[in-house]
């Protein structure tokens, strides 16, 4: 966590969930300052909201792999 945390909007679902797990584990096991704890908590909440948004807005992407190896979208 020494490195600057990534912008939440750029996290994909798996990354978001992984960071959420990390935040909870840190809150549980590594005592730190109140301000830092609150910052982590707020980030955790924002990550969950981001995940919810990802789930709600997910649209199945379907593409077709052509014989020449190119990909083309499929209209449903």
């Amino acid at each position, binding site marked *: 966590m020494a490195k600057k945390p990534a912008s939440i909007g750029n996290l994909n679902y798996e990354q978001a969930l992984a960071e959420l797990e990390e935040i909870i584990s840190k809150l549980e096991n590594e*005592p730190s300052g109140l301000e830092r704890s609150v910052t982590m908590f707020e980030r955790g909440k924002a990550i969950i909201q981001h995940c919810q948004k990802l*789930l709600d807005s997910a649209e199945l992407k379907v593409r077709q792999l052509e014989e020449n190896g190119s990909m083309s979208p499929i209209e449903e």
Partner: protein
Amino acid sequence: MLDYSSEFAYQIYSVSDLNAYIRALLESNENLMDIWVTGEVSNLSKPRSGHIYFTLKDEDASVRCVIWRVHANRLAGAFYDGMRVEVHGYISVYEGGGQYQLYVDGIRAAGEGRLYQEFLLLKEKLAAEGIFEENRKRPIPSQPKFIGIVTSPTGAALQDMLNTLLVRFPMAEVVLSPASVQGEAAPTQIVKALERLNKLVHPDVILIGRGGGSLEDLWAFNDEQVVRAVAASEAPVISGVGHETDFTLTDFAADQRAPTPTGVAVMAVPDINDIKTALSAWYLLLDRTMNNVLDQKRSKLIERKNRLDILSPGWQIKQCMQRLDNSSLRMDYLVNQYFLQKRQQLELAEGKIISFNPRYVLGRGYALVEDKNGSVITTIKQVQLDQDISVYVSDGTISADVTEIKEKE
């Protein structure tokens, strides 16, 4: 011509007897009891009775066939006029029409028997190589991001899979690697489609399948090259070919087998509603963890506050005052105790003094004798004959003379 004179030398049958005799003859022939016959269905008739009647024919011949209702109900698959079939049953005679018939208890599309033989042989061979072993099967990732599909781009199977994925797990990205799934070209196309997916897309899981059809329609999925390609796939494979009851060698080689294409998609991905529920659980967990953190900080604060209170002058003054109060109380107690003790001693002494008073003794009949000088006489040596003495009793004095002195023997 017949010689009528010899007519009594012959046994004469009734028509019924004749037909019964022939029926018994046919029914007792081992070859005819349990026989497979191939031909084309014609004159198919399904009356309300539930029995099925048809004629089985080839270019030169035909035979009447009957399927009794009990068998008709359980015979799988529709069959129709002009269809080439293989039927199983026994030969007997319809005595009413003098006609022998094939009584059918099993029917399948022509060629299925041969296909089935091939199927069993190939299955045995591949099983011996260990291709179907359980320990070769890989786990399916719980939330696959990239999903490869190998099926026909125009088939119902693709629509079934996509619809299911859309509803259950729309976060996935799907790549269709198209292949025709029936016909001569199908096996090669399926193998190439699998290879392309593995090489170019590296999906987390590959779904392969097609909808229901005849055994021949599904045959591509029993092709040796297809089965080997499925077993060798880099990504784990879930297969669903045909219906619940259809099993292909691809199903055996796949890491998971589903009964239908829809089932394949269900097996491949979790339900987004479950994930949303799990996310709510995460929310609760985060909340609770934060509350724990705050509780810890709060109790540390309280502890420090207590320690600070101890150090404050006000608290110390209170402490001193309390100590003072304690001392004062103790002092009062000790003083009281002292006087109580003295009072008791005094009362005790008083009792003793009373008992020592000579008057108290005189009251009990004793007497006190003094000479005229007031000395108490305690021995005969203090007195002489005719000496005046005073005898004190409880209520007065008696003056007396000593008239005799006797020493105690």
